[in-house]
């Protein structure tokens, strides 16, 4: 590592001499693709917004939640590795830190959503602001002490404050270690990670209540936060896997660092959270279906009637059945390239899931629809994420090579 110090920081793209302590990892290509996506997404979003601001709000929510899940889920992944002092993940933890880094951008990008949702009286994305049906009125009356505009704003600010602080804490702590390799930094992150994990549990639950469940204020489900958490962790793991594969293939991470043992651990987590999501999603459905109470079933009747049943069945297959069998074999979980392909499918599943959560509230009895109004914001937010990733790559090394557990992680063996 250190004998490569004479190599210039801007290492060539091909034939990597594995200069782990490099201060730059390139990222120009990522920035270019991100910029392209952002520009294209922004054009589509602009057209969508000028044509139908209300529908655009729903699409914006999908795009926001998609990248939010990757970013916050990655922060959860990083904190979890610190809390458990995991050895296997040290060689790839920087990928998670990189994906968690744009948290502050998400806070900024939430502002337009909050502004239109709260100031524009014509938007219907948060119906609890101006309930139209008798049932909604009753629900909002009962839940008013929680579900009101000032409470929404205060909680949102609090969520982002917590997430931004801990993103800074974990990412900058790890980056600082690149310089001197101070062991106390790891110790400090390990000590504070359980505090974040507890706060994470609460903030994810209430943020998913506020931002997604309150799209249907007359409905409620206590497992909703867990459902969103399952999808979030799954998409973060998928994004980390794809990032790891691309970084390794382009030599930004020395190929010999990431072996089958590391990949298998990542694949095991992907498999576990696929099952977790299936378990939670079915639990939520079965209990509501079995009890058959109108105030609960409204959520599923909306997603089973008027052509939405096909989307619901497709979701069960895309999110659970297909990835389950794809991830079952040991050989697949050992192969980073194949795992990255499955991860792309899992991210697609997350998009279908978010569409299924959000869009029935817009289309309702008109049946499912899809247009540039929904695709635009997803491209826009993905572009923002890629731009942030490209910027991170330009400034930092892709491996936390001064972590005290780094050597042990290189030697990591399963069983």
């Amino acid at each position: 590592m250190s004998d490569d110090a004479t190599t210039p920081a801007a290492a060539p793209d091909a034939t990597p001499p594995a200069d782990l302590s490099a201060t730059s990892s390139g990222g120009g290509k990522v920035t270019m693709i991100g910029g392209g996506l952002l520009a294209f997404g922004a054009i589509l979003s602009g057209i969508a917004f000028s044509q139908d601001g209300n529908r655009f709000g729903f699409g914006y929510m999908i795009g926001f939640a998609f990248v939010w899940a990757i970013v916050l889920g990655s922060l959860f992944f990083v904190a979890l590795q610190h809390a458990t002092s995991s050895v296997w993940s040290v060689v790839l933890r920087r990928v998670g830190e990189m994906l968690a880094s744009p948290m502050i951008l998400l806070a900024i990008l939430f502002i337009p959503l909050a502004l239109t949702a709260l100031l524009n009286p014509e938007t219907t994305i948060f119906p609890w602001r101006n309930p139209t049906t008798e049932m909604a009125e009753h629900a909002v009356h009962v839940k008013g002490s929680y579900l009101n505009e000032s409470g929404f704003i205060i909680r949102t600010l609090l969520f982002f404050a917590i997430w931004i602080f801990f993103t800074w804490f974990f990412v900058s702590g790890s980056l600082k270690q690149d310089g001197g390799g101070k062991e106390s930094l790891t110790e400090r992150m390990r000590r504070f990670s359980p505090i974040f994990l507890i706060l994470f549990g609460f903030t994810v639950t209430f943020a998913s209540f506020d931002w997604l469940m309150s799209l249907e204020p007359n409905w409620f489900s206590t497992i909703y936060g867990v459902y969103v958490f399952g999808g979030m962790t799954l998409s973060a793991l998928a994004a980390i896997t794809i990032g790891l594969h691309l970084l390794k293939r382009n030599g930004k991470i020395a190929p010999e660092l990431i072996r089958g043992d590391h990949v298998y651990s990542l694949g095991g987590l992907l498999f576990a959270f696929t099952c977790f999501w299936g378990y939670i999603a079915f639990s939520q459905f079965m209990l509501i279906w079995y009890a058959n109470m109108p105030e609960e079933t409204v959520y599923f009747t909306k997603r089973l009637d008027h052509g939405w049943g096909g989307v619901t069945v497709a979701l069960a297959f895309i999110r659970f059945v297909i990835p389950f069998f794809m991830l079952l074999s040991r050989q697949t979980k050992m192969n980073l390239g194949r795992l990255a392909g499955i991860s792309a499918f899992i991210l697609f599943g997350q998009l279908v899931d978010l569409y299924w959560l959000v869009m029935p509230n817009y289309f309702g009895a008109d049946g499912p629809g899809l247009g540039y109004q929904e695709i635009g914001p997803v491209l826009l937010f993905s572009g923002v994420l890629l731009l942030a990733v490209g910027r991170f790559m330009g400034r930092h090394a892709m491996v936390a090579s001064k972590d005290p557990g780094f050597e042990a992680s290189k030697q990591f063996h399963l069983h």
Partner: protein
Amino acid sequence: MSDRKVVGIIGLFDDPDSLIAAAKKVRDTGYTKWDCHTPYPVHGLDDAMGLKPTPMPYITITAGLIGGALAMYMMYWMSAVDYPVRIGGKPYFSWPAFVPITFEAFVLFAGLATMGGMIVLTKLGSWASPLHDNDVMGEVTSSRMGVVLDADDEKFGEDSARDLLGEVGCQDIRVLYAADDEEA
């Protein structure tokens, strides 16, 4: 001594690295009936011995799928065919209500098949092995590691096996004989 039947040759090693080197050599020579004995799991020994992946996962998934299908069929037959009772205004065959039991039967069958399959594949039931009667087993289960070349292997010959183990630097090579009471 020499009139007793030779069942194999064991080469003893004191460290895992030389054991792995020896295992690779034996594997490449083409032996099929041979084994390694170690007092603790040795990383990389599977590859060095050229062991094929176990068929266990296929046994597990097959048994699991059969168990799940049987459970679902059992509940269908009981609640929709043999003794239909209308519950909660739902159809007789209300499959979502049957999913938990189906899942549990899947796990039960898969688990039992895994255990049974493990016992069969590792030949756990075959009590008699000439190695059991040999003192050298005491050594390879406490402090040393051994490569055993079985006399039943087509390539086996007492001298060639000795040479092979000597080539990989084994200092302690012993011939294993069948127990006295066993007929040759």
